[in-house]
């Protein structure tokens, strides 16, 4: 079965005054039709760069695509001329950004911003575009759509703006929606509403979604498969069940352990992951997580671990999964049921 989106061995660097930053190092994944894929990882792990490169939103320079391929519906996006890529952007792939406060043009009416994609991709007439824009505003749950159509972004609240962004991204019925930390900038109750909206739309339209987040709660709620990224690499990937019930990478353990548990009877200190992310100017030759890893062995520092397939589709990049590695007692993640 062919995948909707297939990313293979993607490598992206950024030129800076301090040298070249290796932001994405050999990342491969795929998204199937109607599927929600979550990418988790801390700031600077290369999540956003990876998905922005799908849309050709990485400015070059300073960005350099060092290698790899991004295939969407069988088309190689990295080799498409700009003009062809523009036909896919916004019509077949929509994108929602992290900060709704700055992602809308402050001097253009929200309705007009929703219409733009329709007019260029579907050659909609003004009246059609307006009708569709109002429908979209209604669809994303903004009351009084007709009045809201004529308002400017500053007349919208933060949550409303993110809803408007979703309306923009979905206006042309894309096959794939990329949501780059769509709820990070919103407060908790609004986060839940926006996620609920995305889930609902996903169920109705069967749009595939790539959801970037560092909120594991969001992942458990919405995604089917998960990719865990660290230091520009994929360290573990699998189904939500694999990642939450049977994680096989110490970084994933650390992430799961750092979730506060609301049901906990006694108050316990949260367990942070000690240390800081690797220096991507000169990444360590071994596993990028080794310096922070409690279970690090000599080989971890010396050599990059290969991909170990735990079972169908569940892959972890960690030496601990080698048959020669000593057995370690896996910490019980707080998020899991015991």
């Amino acid at each position, binding site marked *: 079965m062919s995948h909707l989106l297939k990313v293979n061995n993607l490598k992206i660097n950024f030129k800076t005054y301090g040298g070249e930053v290796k932001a994405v190092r050999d990342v491969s994944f795929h998204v199937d039709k109607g599927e929600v894929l979550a990418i988790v990882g801390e700031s600077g792990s290369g999540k956003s760069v990876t998905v922005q490169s799908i849309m050709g939103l990485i400015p070059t320079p300073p960005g350099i695509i060092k290698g790899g391929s991004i295939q969407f519906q069988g088309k190689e996006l990295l080799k498409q001329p700009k003009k062809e890529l523009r036909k896919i952007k*916004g019509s077949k792939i929509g994108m929602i950004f992290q*900060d709704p406060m700055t*992602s809308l043009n402050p*001097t253009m009416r929200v309705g007009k911003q929703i219409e*733009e994609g329709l007019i260029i991709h579907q050659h909609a007439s003004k009246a059609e575009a307006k009708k569709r824009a109002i429908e979209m505003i209604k669809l994303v749950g903004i009351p009084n759509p007709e009045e809201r159509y004529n308002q400017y972004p500053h007349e919208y609240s933060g949550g409303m703006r993110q809803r408007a962004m979703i309306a*923009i991204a979905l206006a042309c019925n894309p096959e794939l929606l990329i949501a780059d930390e769509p709820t990070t900038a919103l407060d908790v109750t609004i986060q839940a509403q926006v996620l609920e909206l995305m889930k609902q739309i996903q169920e109705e339209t069967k749009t595939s979604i790539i959801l970037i987040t560092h909120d594991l709660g969001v992942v458990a709620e919405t995604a089917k498969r998960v990719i865990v990224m660290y230091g520009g690499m994929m360290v573990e990937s699998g189904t939500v069940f694999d990642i939450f019930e049977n994680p096989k990478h110490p970084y994933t353990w650390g992430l799961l352990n750092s979730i506060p548990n609301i049901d906990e009877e006694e108050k316990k200190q949260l367990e942070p992951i000690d240390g800081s992310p690797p220096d991507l100017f000169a990444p360590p030759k071994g596993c990028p997580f080794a310096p922070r890893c409690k279970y690090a062995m000599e080989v971890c520092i010396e050599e990059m671990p290969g991909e170990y397939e735990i079972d169908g589709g569940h892959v972890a990049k960690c030496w601990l999964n080698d048959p020669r590695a000593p057995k370690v007692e896996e910490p019980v993640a707080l998020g899991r049921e015991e």
Partner: protein
Amino acid sequence: MYIVKRFFTMLLTIWVIASLTFVIMKFIPGDPFASDADVLPEEVVENMRAKYNLDEPIPIQYVLYIKNLVMFDLGPSIESETRTVNDIISSGFPASATLGLQSLLIAIIFGLLLGIIAALYHNRFLDYVSMVIAIVGISVPSFILAPLLINYFSVKWGMLPVASWGSFQHSILPTLALATTPLAVVARFMRSSMLEVMNQNYIKTADAKGLSSFKIVLKHGIRNAILPVVSFIGPLFVSLITGTFVIEKIFAIPGIGKYFVDSIFNRDYPVIMGTTVFFSVILVFTLFLIDISYRFIDPRIKLTSKGD
């Protein structure tokens, strides 16, 4: 409501400017008849002073002046005896205003264009070309540029008249000479503003919609970038249309610029006051228009006075 309130503030501003000018003017040593006092009998000078109310105490002079000002009567000129200040302004202003408006248009259109091009080709060849033009424009004073233009376009190539005023052809060279510096300033303003805007998230949103670079700049870039430039255009507009001494002198244009300067040398009190007040009325009114235009450019700006 805002507009009414604003109108009264404008009147107040003009009154303050007029009063300050009056006070400062009286502090300058000498008076219009200082050179006549040596050759003419004392009684004659006394009579002349009386004619212009200069024998009255200063507070009375001030009250008389403000009274005339309210009736739009700027008084007689002392230097050119047959003309009133109103005559001087109405004969000199059209030429100055035409020249100023033409220069302003050129400065804005080409300045914006140059700035946008520079921003879009940031750190590439076209950016460097634009900025070299801008720096040359800012550093070469108009009194050097003007003779150069005359030398080539009029003397060597005979394409345009050397000087004086009358037809459109006459206005081309002075317009160019006058427009260059503001053009360069507008270009630099627009470039930096545009660079900032093109890094904003909403430009990324527009890009993700599949808009072409041209459309992104046109629909999302310019309108957001233009605001700081607009606030600069107000004072620029006034300084251009109220006449420029240097350019008008070089091209022998019968504009208002020379009266500004001459009146101060001659202590021609009514002309000093008249031209200054005229200048400030235009300035204050232009700033008012600029404020209103903000509202149309940026919907976040609301025209309300405090307490509304």
